[in-house]
């Protein structure tokens, strides 16, 4: 199987989403699919059979390729690819701001998460202060509007995924981040029952 492969199949079934436990990218995919009412067959794995093929072809680290989607004749990996796919599939409207400035701000906050916050999480204790600084900036941003960039966008989905992946480790800090706490309550209404879906692997 190649790194972005197709195989023939006539059966119509729900797309399979293979996720990694407590992985921000996997959580992003589940949250977006849940918000867009996409029916996915979610399973959890530390690594998949596809990984070894990917590793051979592109020397990727084994777990780099999760999450993965298998949808009928198509198999794809890498979060950006999956999120692009999930944001178009189905009949619900895509999460895509119409205004260029909102779109740009949405992407700024997504990049802050991916490029600045995520690398710090591998040594959570050692980077506690830097993580707090970023979360404080998010809290400040949320003091201006109810959502990350004024309206509900992918930035909310990305940051909700990050929060859910680290919530046990930041519970002490959360009391001082009042706007972030209020936003979380709002997100529970916006994407109902998402926490249960994200924790399903633990049961």
């Amino acid at each position, binding site marked *: 199987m190649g790194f972005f492969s197709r195989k023939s199949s006539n059966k119509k079934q729900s797309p399979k989403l293979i996720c990694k436990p407590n992985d921000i990218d996997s959580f992003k995919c589940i949250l977006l699919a849940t918000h867009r009412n996409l029916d996915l067959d979610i399973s959890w794995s530390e690594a998949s059979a596809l990984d070894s093929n990917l590793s051979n072809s592109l020397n990727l680290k084994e777990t780099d390729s999760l999450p993965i989607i298998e949808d009928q004749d198509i198999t794809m990996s890498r979060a950006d690819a999956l999120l692009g796919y999930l944001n178009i599939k189905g009949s619900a409207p895509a999460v895509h701001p119409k205004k*260029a400035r909102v779109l740009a701000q949405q*992407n700024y906050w997504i990049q802050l998460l991916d490029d600045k916050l995520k690398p710090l999480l591998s040594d959570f204790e050692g980077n506690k202060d830097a993580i707090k600084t970023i979360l404080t900036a998010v809290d400040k941003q949320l003091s201006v509007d109810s959502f990350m960039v004024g309206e509900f966008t992918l930035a909310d989905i990305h940051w909700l995924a990050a929060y859910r992946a680290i919530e046990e480790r930041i519970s002490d800090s959360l009391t001082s981040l009042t706007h972030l706490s209020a936003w979380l309550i709002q997100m529970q209404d916006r994407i109902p029952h998402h926490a249960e879906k994200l924790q399903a692997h633990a049961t």
Partner: protein
Amino acid sequence: MTDLFEKMASQAGMADTSKYGLSGDLKKTQYILELLGTPIDANTLKCLLTAGEQGMEMNSYNTDKMAAEEFQAEFQKISPFGITPCLKEADFMVCGTKAILAFIDARGLGYSLSPLNAALVAMQNYWSDIAIKQFAPVAEYLINKEVNGTTGNDAEQLSRLDLYLSALDNQLRNNKYIVCDKYTWADLHWTAYIHLIVVAGHVDLINKHQNVAAWWQKIKTKKSQCGQDLVAYELLPNLDDIKTGRLQSVEIQDY
């Protein structure tokens, strides 16, 4: 208050006269964009390519031209987490490649660079991600070696380069562009990195891969997406530009 953009514009001799409306001539693009970046940075090159593809006028300022201490103090104010490059449009400012590319694409005159089909979007994002996360470090290594004399494990880097170019070559077997027969973001990302590799003196490594070489020839002469008389690739800096810190601005002549 004077911000970093105004200081850079003034330093580049582009303040006032280059601002929209001062000459009295209305142009299709309502505001001239302003970009802070560096010519050796692939992300800055992607912004130039996008502005060219979408026919957006943009004044570009090389941040290396400002004394490091002064720049850091000013830069901290506009990008507290150090995300680069940065873009300004009138009273709006944003930093980060993802943000800038999406902004110019949405503002521009041409069709969006992103396909509408879900599978094509996924494939576009997949190949963009490979370029950004896997291929970029190799391109950065080679251009930094050429321009700044940095050293490292050449054999390992060249082996990685060959691995990714072979994968890209395979992908381009049946397509005009990387994802399909239309130019997408995947092409734009790979263009920036491959350009830096070519500028660093390794065109032979590109030409070794037949399909990549053919794609590269198309990219170098492709007219911009927006229909203006412009080849976006020609906006990219050559080795001399990179060494002397020259960053081209995007000017649209044929309104």
